[in-house]
């Protein structure tokens, strides 16, 4: 899935990465409405500049817009919605309810930076190279952060998964 940083049509990026982009915005804002506004704001801004972008740039734009949304909310009611749906559909209910609940808690308990990397890697299906570009950080730093986060999750989940 590595696009080598090449520009791709914005519409194609949205169709392919919509879930990952939204989950990233959710991981930052913890609010579905603000996450949607963040994704929309990011695409509106990008549309003013062009039609083709690298995938990492689009994720970075959504991340920035989500952080803007978070700053706007500081003085209003705090919501704490999970990136996960509360009611798993039967066909996807592979994990037990108890395990799902633990995963929710442990993902929420990660540091913000760790959670972002996990979401981009697991749900955005980005490569470490793309995540490093998105965050503007060294590749090694991103890979180490991911490793620490997954190690923490693994310890908490034990043999449940």
């Amino acid at each position, binding site marked *: 899935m590595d696009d080598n940083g090449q520009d791709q049509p914005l519409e194609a990026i*949205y169709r392919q990465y919509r879930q990952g982009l939204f989950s990233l915005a959710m991981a930052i804002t913890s609010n579905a409405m603000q996450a949607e506004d963040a994704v929309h704001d990011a*695409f509106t801004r990008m549309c003013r500049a062009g039609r083709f972008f690298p995938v990492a740039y689009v994720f970075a734009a959504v991340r920035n817009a989500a952080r803007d949304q978070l700053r706007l909310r500081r003085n209003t009611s705090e919501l704490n919605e999970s990136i996960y749906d509360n009611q798993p559909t039967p066909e996807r209910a592979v994990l037990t309810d108890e395990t*799902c609940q633990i995963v*929710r808690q442990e993902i929420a308990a990660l540091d913000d930076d760790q959670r972002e990397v996990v979401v981009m890697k697991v749900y955005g299906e980005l490569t470490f190279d793309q995540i490093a570009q998105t965050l503007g950080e060294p590749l090694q730093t991103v890979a180490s952060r991911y490793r620490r986060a*997954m190690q923490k999750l693994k310890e908490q989940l034990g043999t449940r*998964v």
Partner: protein
Amino acid sequence: MNEQHGEFDDLEQALRQMPLRAPSPQLDRRIIQTIQRRPATRWMIGLAAATLAAAAALLLIMRASGNSSQTPSLKPTPTMVAFVPSTQKASLTQLVETDAQWSEDGIVDVQADGPIRQYRLITTHQITEVENGKLATMTFPQEEVYQFVSEAF
């Protein structure tokens, strides 16, 4: 760096089985509309810029021809209408209407070479979009002020 984290494959797989909160269909519509409307917006800006450039060129010609002492015609400029074909969506049609009118404010100042007469060029761009049977109209007003030296009485 390769993606070597094989020790977490099982955990990644388990995480992917978690039911994610999905973006709403409304967001999908908002995003796709935003992406697909962008070229039309650029076209509209181009038309507005061309209209303004034409107005500016007209003024320059008037000044260069030594007619600065004459008042420009205050008759309404004919309305321009343009149909904008959409390259993105067959169901999208746009009507761009531009209306420009001069008005005179009279003498606003007096300098050594004569009284200064002030005119206003009021331009209105109205864009009407017909998409999927729905009408949406946007209006962009613009006002420019020009001053010319008139002949002294």
